[in-house]
């Protein structure tokens, strides 16, 4: 029973809520899917409701929405130029999704969507897919100039191009692994410290007195996780902007 409670991995288990099976594929509605829907619902409801009044002098909640808007648009303008603003809806949706998913994951008993690598990798693949499709659509084969840096001697060119290609392919990997590893590690640490509290307080009066330490640690870690949740959403969005910049302006 006690060991069951302390298991720090248990929070990441996927549970099928509504089993759906179409054509041999398992398309069940899981707790992960439920929290993705919840994330989208919370993000859209928040943005819609807070900006519904459209007052010229924003109230508190409206200024939160406007700050998020300004934040992302400045980020995009700084790294991809004014042309990048056509990707604003894309980047803003990604940012809000990751941010709200991270924040929702901080609630006790909630499932953290971004702690599964397949989810973060899906998001990163979407970003890189957009970059590649838009890059080829806009520049045609000129997009391949991305992989050929200027001023490299001809005999080194094949090697450099190979390395550049690998470096490009490693981008979605590092993008997704960073978000996933941060969320996973943070939540496991949080769970382990909370587990200490439970197992120490089972030891009687001395244990209960001693369990104050891990409890304080868990509180501090929660604050740190709040920071990490925001920071990772920010990093994800910034890197998305930088990659989009490559699609907009390859090779100059």
């Amino acid at each position, binding site marked *: 029973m006690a060991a069951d409670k302390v298991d720090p991995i248990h929070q990441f288990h996927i549970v099928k809520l509504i089993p759906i099976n179409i054509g041999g594929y398992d398309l069940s509605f899981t707790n992960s899917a439920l929290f993705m829907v919840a994330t989208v619902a919370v993000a859209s409801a928040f943005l819609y409701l807070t900006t519904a009044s459209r007052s010229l002098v924003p109230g508190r909640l409206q200024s939160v929405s406007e700050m998020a808007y300004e934040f992302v648009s*400045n980020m995009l303008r*700084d790294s991809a130029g004014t042309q990048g603003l056509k990707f604003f809806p894309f980047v803003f949706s990604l940012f809000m999704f990751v941010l709200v998913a991270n924040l929702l994951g901080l609630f006790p008993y909630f499932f953290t969507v971004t702690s599964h690598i397949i989810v973060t990798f899906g998001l990163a693949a979407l970003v890189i897919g957009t970059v590649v499709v838009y890059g080829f659509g806009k520049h045609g084969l000129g997009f391949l100039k991305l992989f050929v840096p200027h*001023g490299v001697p001809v005999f080194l060119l094949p090697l450099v191009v*190979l390395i550049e290609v690998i470096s490009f392919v490693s981008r979605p990997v590092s993008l997704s692994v*960073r978000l996933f590893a941060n969320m996973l590690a943070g939540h496991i640490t949080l769970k382990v410290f909370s587990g200490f509290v439970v197992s120490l307080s089972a030891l009687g009066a001395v244990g209960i007195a001693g369990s104050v330490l891990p409890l304080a640690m868990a509180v501090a870690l929660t604050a740190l996780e709040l920071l990490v949740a925001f920071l990772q959403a920010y990093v994800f969005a910034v890197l998305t902007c930088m990659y989009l910049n490559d699609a907009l302006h390859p090779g100059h």
Partner: protein
Amino acid sequence: MADTNGPDGTGETGRGRQREADIRDDDLERRRRDLEASLATRRPDRLEGKDDAKAVTGYGQALKLSSEFIAGIVVGVAIGWIIDRLAGISPWGLIVGLLLGFGAGVLNVLRSAGLVAQFGQGGTPRDPEE
């Protein structure tokens, strides 16, 4: 701000007398530029959140650099291993893939540390061990 309405040649600036033709395209363009310029002066001081984010993150920076490096190696090994599987030239694909992946990892680190130009933008991003 009478001058933003543009001279209409009559010397009058009243709103009532202003005809539609007076709001010419270049006038609009100029006002848009003015707005853009005045917005631009306000923008930098709105970015303070970014500096805050930077200040907290020696740890984040280290994590970012190491994940960039490891991602390069992982991708290189994966590509090499797949080539091995497809072409049946084991172990050479893995060896070459790992070395190239190492180069790409170092390149990633240099790039995110800002020492090498970004993708496709001049400079000679050769890594030192070549």
